[in-house]
Each structure stands twice: as C-alpha cells, then as structure tokens.
C-alpha cells in the first residue's frame, strides 16, 4: 500500500491555483481560480486507434480546506471540460493555508496548497 501511495505522489498531476487580486487585506474577498490537468474521460468516446471505448476517468470530487476547515466542496461529473477549471471566492479573514484536494473516480488524489496572507 505504501509503495502505491508513493507512486501516486510521484505521478501526481499538475494543479495550479491563482488568487485574485494578488494583494488583499484581512477580510477581503479573494477569488480562487484553480486548474488541474486531467483528461476527464466520459466513458462514451471510442479510442480512434483501437476502436474500444476509453473507460470513464474523471475528477468527481473537489474539496477546499482553509486553515484545516472544509469550506467548499464540489461534486463533479464527466461533462466538465478536460483540465477542469473551478473558480470561487474565499473570505480572507485569517492567515492560513488554503488546500485544494482533487479526487477522481479511480481513487487518484492530487493536493495543492497556497498560503492566504492578508496584508
């Protein structure tokens, strides 16, 4: 189990988080734009080479933690575009990490953390 987990971390997907605006004061509303590189296979499309259906493989859950507390969660279907983009707001009322966790239907997990530092 440990080896598999290490493997997963190594092959982790690229995830990006941008905060808008880049400078903000305590209590400001900050927009969080997130992207994760994921093919989002619907399970409805055939592989052009093999003619076989590409099995469904998609992000189905996103969780957002701010200072360790779950503040937002997203249930996701395969009809969200490849490399899913999600954007939402956070009230930056404390200096704390913002962690986003992406989970897919094959059990693959990707995490990314940014610091919320109000000026």
């Amino acid at each position, binding site marked *: *189990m440990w080896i*598999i987990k290490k493997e997963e971390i190594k092959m982790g997907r690229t995830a990006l988080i941008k905060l808008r605006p880049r400078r903000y004061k305590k209590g400001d*509303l900050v*927009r969080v734009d997130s992207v994760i590189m994921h093919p989002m296979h*619907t*399970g*409805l499309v055939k592989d052009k080479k093999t003619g076989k*259906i590409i*099995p*469904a*493989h998609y992000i*189905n859950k996103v969780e957002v933690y*701010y200072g360790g*507390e*779950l*503040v*937002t*969660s*997203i*249930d*996701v*279907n*395969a*009809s*969200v*575009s*490849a490399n*899913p*983009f*999600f*954007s*939402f*707001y*956070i*009230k930056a009322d404390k200096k704390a990490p913002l962690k986003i966790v992406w989970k897919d*239907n*094959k*059990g693959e997990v990707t995490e990314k953390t940014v610091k919320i530092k109000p000026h």
Partner: protein
Amino acid sequence: MNRRNFLKMTAVAGAVVAVSPAVPLGLEAKAQPKKRSFEEALKEITKGKKPVESQKVKLIAPSIAENGAVVPVKVEVVEPIENVKAIHIMADKNFDPWTCSVHLTPQNGKPYFSTRIRLAKTMNVYAIAELKDGSFIMAKKPVKVTIGGCG
C-alpha cells in the same frame, strides 16, 4: 450497452477494487456513464422540488460557443452567502444533464462559482441555487454550438 460489454466493464471494475481496497465500491459503480433525462437529473438535485426562475441567479455563458468542449459558465447569486447552500450546473440535452454542484459555506463570502463545461450540442444551460430554506431558484441560458463537422 450490450451484455458482453457490461461483463467486461464489471470485470475491470472488479479488478480495480481488488487491487486498491481503499476505493469504495460506490465510486466505481458511479464511474459508468448513465443516460438520464433532464427531469430525472433535476429531481435528484432538488428532491422533487420545482426550482423557480429568478432574476437573483445571474448566469453568464456565451450565446454562441466556438468550441462545445470548453464552454465557460459563471454564476452569481444575488443573495447573502449565508442564504446559499449550493449551486448546481446542468445542461439539459447532455447524456447526463447534471454537470457539477458546488457546496458553499459562509467562509466563501460570496455565492459565486465559475467553471468550463462540455455541451454535446446546442442546448440550455441551467444554474440552480439551493437556498438555506430548502427552496431552489434558477436561471437558464441557451448556448449554441456547431451542428457538426468532420475530423
């Protein structure tokens, strides 16, 4: 789906579960795409309640999408964040009309959500806001995509 494909799929699903017991069975079962009508999908979201069209739900999506695979959708609900529990995005003529649901908390500060979705053809996109009192308000927008082309 014919029987042989179904057997293949269950066999694959079974294998995955065996290798990684951490994955709950439910997730694998959910992985297989299921065709649903808009009414069926909506019923699951609202538990049978009828969403009311409201000016308070601002849904921004392109009237014409140059690429149906990447259609930007923005939703803002003109309500205090404390009153909005969730925002659901649906696309009525997709294979499964339910696209995503975001569950918000007061920490979000503002009931806003934006994403990019796939549309199989020209159809209506819906933004459905779930309010604290258990009611649902919504907005819809027709989005046109190409009628087709050859690869």
